[in-house]
């Protein structure tokens, strides 16, 4: 058989799309305030203080919303078992 080229180090686009869809679907199931906090901090990469300024809420509120959102997402994305919801 001819020697195959090494696989590209770039992730499979199908996997990327599937992952994005899964994350999008999971985020849609999270309460909107938690969703916005999680998207700002975890997806968009804003520092918590900056996210708090944008949302005009205390830093602790952003942390709390992120915590609850991530906890729910951890289950929805399969990182924790269903019983944890």
């Amino acid at each position, binding site marked *: 058989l001819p020697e195959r080229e090494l696989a590209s180090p770039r992730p499979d686009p199908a996997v990327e799309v599937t992952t994005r869809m899964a994350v999008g679907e999971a985020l849609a199931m999270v309460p909107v305030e938690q969703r*916005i906090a999680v998207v700002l901090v975890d997806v968009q990469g804003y520092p918590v203080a900056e996210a708090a300024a944008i949302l005009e809420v205390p830093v602790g509120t952003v942390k709390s919303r992120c915590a609850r959102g991530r906890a729910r997402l951890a289950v929805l994305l399969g990182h924790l078992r269903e019983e944890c919801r």
Partner: protein
Amino acid sequence: MNDRTPESRGPDDPADPDDLIGLAELDADLPDPAEAAAGRHDARADPRAAEVLDALAATRAELGAVEEPELPSAVAARWAAALAAEPALPQDDLRTAVRPARRRLFRRHLVVVAAAAAGVVGVVGAVGVLTPRPGPAPPPLAVSRVDLVAVATSTVGTMDVGALDDPARRAACLRAVLPGAVGERLLGGRRVVLDGRHGVLLVLATGTRGGLHVVTVDPECGPAGGALLAQVRVG
């Protein structure tokens, strides 16, 4: 977290929801330092807690790996038309418009963030409802160099860059006139007349939060080269 000891649970028991929230708050740095230190100490001794913290870390990593979807050009065009339909500010008001414009940017960003979190279809649907159909392109805005920053701030979200709407052409243009800006993300742009000379103002993200790179090039800028009319970094 509650006061159950690690020994009271088997390795296959699911985490208690209260524990999960408590650990998520610990993971998010919510408790005060003394409480957090005690919580981390407890978590280190509890394999289930460690598993939950690992799951939360994996969740954050998965969220962080999601790339933002590209804004469809049709949506960008509708935004541009909607922003162009806003009443124009006199030149003297441009500086005072910066703060409100920044707030509008944040709010606009939030709408996109919220919609993006619900899926790209949501973005298209929401913007389609909220913005009018595209009309004729507005005339180039006459600006002077001292106004560039104020104009740039209000340009974020606008996409009226003529032929530079083509990412390949834009990259080739920047490569020719300002190689250091090639990798910078376009936040907005508009056709301008800068001190009497036609150009295209591009607002680029520097990669630093709040940082902007404002670049003005000639409208014909592309693979064959072009002219850099002005550039300024903000933040």
